[in-house]
């Protein structure tokens, strides 16, 4: 049974550009850049010095305390520089620069093909050590999501294969081309959590993936593949839990309190590679799509490559490209340059034309209520905007502005093109600032 989550929108999915394009492998570039911050959490400390020789898979930076995963070199070569540079998550951060010597030398990999003989704690430690993070947008470290308190009993593991963002097809291609690795990774995750049931949630616009996984897994009674109606943001954690189990996660609670853990489907592939093959997270599957490209496709790119190293593979047309976005069109981050490096959370680099952006004229709010109806968190976006502009931060918190998941539905739907998400983000950062004081 599939439940319906509230709100949401139906943007054209635009996956036809790349869904049938097999993942191409990128030639590694000569220079690679590794920002020491790849996701929320603590900044890493470099483990290598300028001039040092590094091999593929070698740990470059680590942080022992706080929420962090190490990063590893994706090429062999020399550390050329460690300095503060701009990175795609907006801002400036310490970055390790490596010159590729094209020898493709690997470090000794520690493999655990018999993972079921290892303790759960040890497996979680391996997953951390391999730098594995969630591939579903927030790039949350996977080990942290698996480290549930021992008192919590996890019944269900949800594998998020919704990929509800328009254009993106990287999860889909991974399901199609790395099916066995995905299944292997899912089994490892299931073992670590000791779950009774594993549910794959995949949107109906990926019928081949659903069929493939159903065929592969039909012998398992405790694994279920559920086809979900196509609706954004189906892949949002709270929305997916609701859609698959009917349970609504109360504010401030984490999924494990409902006995649920959600993991992204591509993350499972990396878990398998990390544990069974010993390979740390050094690459990422990226969808290159949008009218700005002459040949949209999917690419397996080494982390640390710059956008321009991959976008040139598909002939980007800069005149047509109005916006360059890391991620999907609903939640991705607009980039102002192709010189920025690819990080662990990069699952798409979209080059969208003016027509695809479909910009409208901004007018007065006509109180149509469409933003409220579309909000999957059932918030009141329009009210937030008024309060932010009046700087009434206390009321904002009372109206639960912090529950906003930045999904973008409200701005997407607004007929007056009000800058709702933008203003809400501003309000949230102001509140965070005030609370820190």
């Amino acid at each position: 049974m599939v439940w319906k989550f509230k709100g949401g929108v139906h943007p054209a999915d635009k996956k036809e550009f790349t869904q049938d394009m097999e993942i191409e492998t990128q030639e590694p570039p000569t220079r690679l850049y590794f920002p020491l911050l790849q996701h929320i959490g603590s900044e890493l400390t470099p483990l290598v010095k300028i001039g040092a020789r590094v091999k593929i898979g070698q740990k470059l930076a680590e942080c022992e305390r706080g929420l962090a995963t190490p990063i590893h070199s994706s090429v062999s070569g020399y550390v050329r520089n460690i300095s503060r540079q701009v990175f795609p998550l907006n801002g400036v951060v310490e970055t390790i620069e490596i010159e590729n010597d094209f020898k493709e030398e690997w470090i000794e990999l520690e493999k655990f093909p018999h993972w079921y003989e290892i303790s759960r704690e040890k497996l979680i430690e391996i997953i951390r050590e391999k730098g594995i993070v969630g591939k579903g947008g927030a790039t949350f470290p996977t080990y942290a999501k698996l480290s549930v308190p021992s008192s919590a009993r996890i019944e269900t593991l949800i594998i998020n294969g919704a990929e509800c963002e328009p254009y993106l097809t990287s999860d889909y291609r991974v399901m199609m081309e790395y099916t066995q690795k995905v299944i292997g990774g899912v089994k490892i995750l299931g073992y670590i959590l000791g779950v009774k049931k594993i549910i794959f949630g995949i949107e109906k616009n990926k019928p081949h993936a659903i069929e493939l996984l159903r065929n592969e897994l039909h012998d398992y009674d405790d694994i279920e593949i559920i086809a979900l109606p196509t609706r954004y943001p189906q892949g949002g954690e709270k929305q997916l839990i609701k859609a698959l189990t009917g349970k609504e996660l109360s504010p401030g609670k984490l999924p494990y309190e409902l006995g649920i853990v959600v993991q992204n489907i591509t993350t499972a592939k990396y878990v398998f590679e990390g544990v069974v093959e010993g390979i740390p997270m050094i690459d990422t599957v990226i969808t290159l799509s949008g009218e700005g490209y002459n040949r949209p496709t999917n690419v397996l790119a080494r982390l640390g490559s710059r956008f321009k190293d991959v976008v040139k593979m598909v002939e980007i047309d800069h005149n047509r490209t109005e916006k360059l976005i890391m991620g999907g069109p609903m939640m991705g981050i607009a980039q102002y340059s192709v010189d920025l490096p690819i990080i662990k959370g990069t699952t798409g680099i979209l080059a969208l034309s003016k027509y695809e952006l479909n910009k409208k004229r901004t007018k007065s709010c006509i109180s149509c209520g469409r933003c409220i109806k579309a909000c999957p968190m059932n918030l009141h976006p329009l009210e937030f905007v008024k309060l932010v502009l009046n700087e009434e931060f206390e009321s904002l918190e009372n109206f639960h502005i912090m529950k906003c998941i930045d999904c973008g539905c409200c701005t997407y739907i607004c007929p007056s093109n009000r800058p709702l998400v933008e203003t809400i983000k501003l309000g949230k950062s102001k509140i965070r600032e005030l609370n820190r004081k």
Partner: protein
Amino acid sequence: MLKKLRVSSSPHIRSNETVTTIMRDVLIALVPSMVMAIVFFRVQAVILLLTCMAASLIIEWGVHITFKRKIDFTDTSPLVTGILLALIVPSNLPLWMAIIGVFVAIFFGKMVFGGLGHNIFNPALVGRCFLLASWPVAMTNWASFDGVSGATVLNTIKMHGNSAATALFGTTSGEYLHMFLGSRLGSLGETSTLALLIGALYLFLRRTISWHTPASMIGTVFLLSWCVGRDPILSIMSGGLILGAFFMATDMVTTPKTGMGKIIFGVGAGALVVWIRVKGGYPEGVAYAILLMNAVTPLIDKMTKPKPFGYGGKNA
């Protein structure tokens, strides 16, 4: 040199719906009623409609020019106001009165509040009520399609009861049919229920309006009319109820934003309609009912604030 890339907050794409497309849909939805009005009232209807449409645009732009604001030519909402006003006045209303009505609607109904989106009351209804208060005779002097003036169905019920109204048309079913098609006395666009419903159906299919307000408003009128001993079917088809429920009580700016709020609005407006029809001095109460509910809309919106995800839930 590379073209500059644009950088702004997500989301980066937009839906196709704009205020302009919404207004365009409303205009399209009003076409059947305008056609029916022309069929029944001939040249009179054409002239009245054109006058109100022209007046609405000229007044809107005039106000913009006077206050040195930029004219937005993509905004067709004044046309909607103009047409709606034309549809809710008698076909033989003197044209100068109609023009004054449009002026009041657009200037006092909308512009003084700050323009589209900031107004509290439905502009067309403001115009109509002003006209009704100023020239009550002209505003209730309905000419029928063949040029004979007389009393409306509602007036007849008010004065003489259900059976007298039936007598106007012969049989009960004949009466319903007349009411449904529109060959009866009344304001320009209020007469043909069928034409209004076709337009409303279009708005539903385009998802421009939701079922909440019309269903709750018409349902309330039906039930309450039946309770007070009036013919419920006649009651919902007579007067401006259908037009009001589908085209005015669904106005986004002046009515509640959430489904629950819309239902409260509809029930309240429906109850007021029956109350005014039965107890009030006027035979017809749709305009006042909607305006009164417009006034309490901010309150309804406050009462029906959505509860964030997870708060209403049954689960932990």
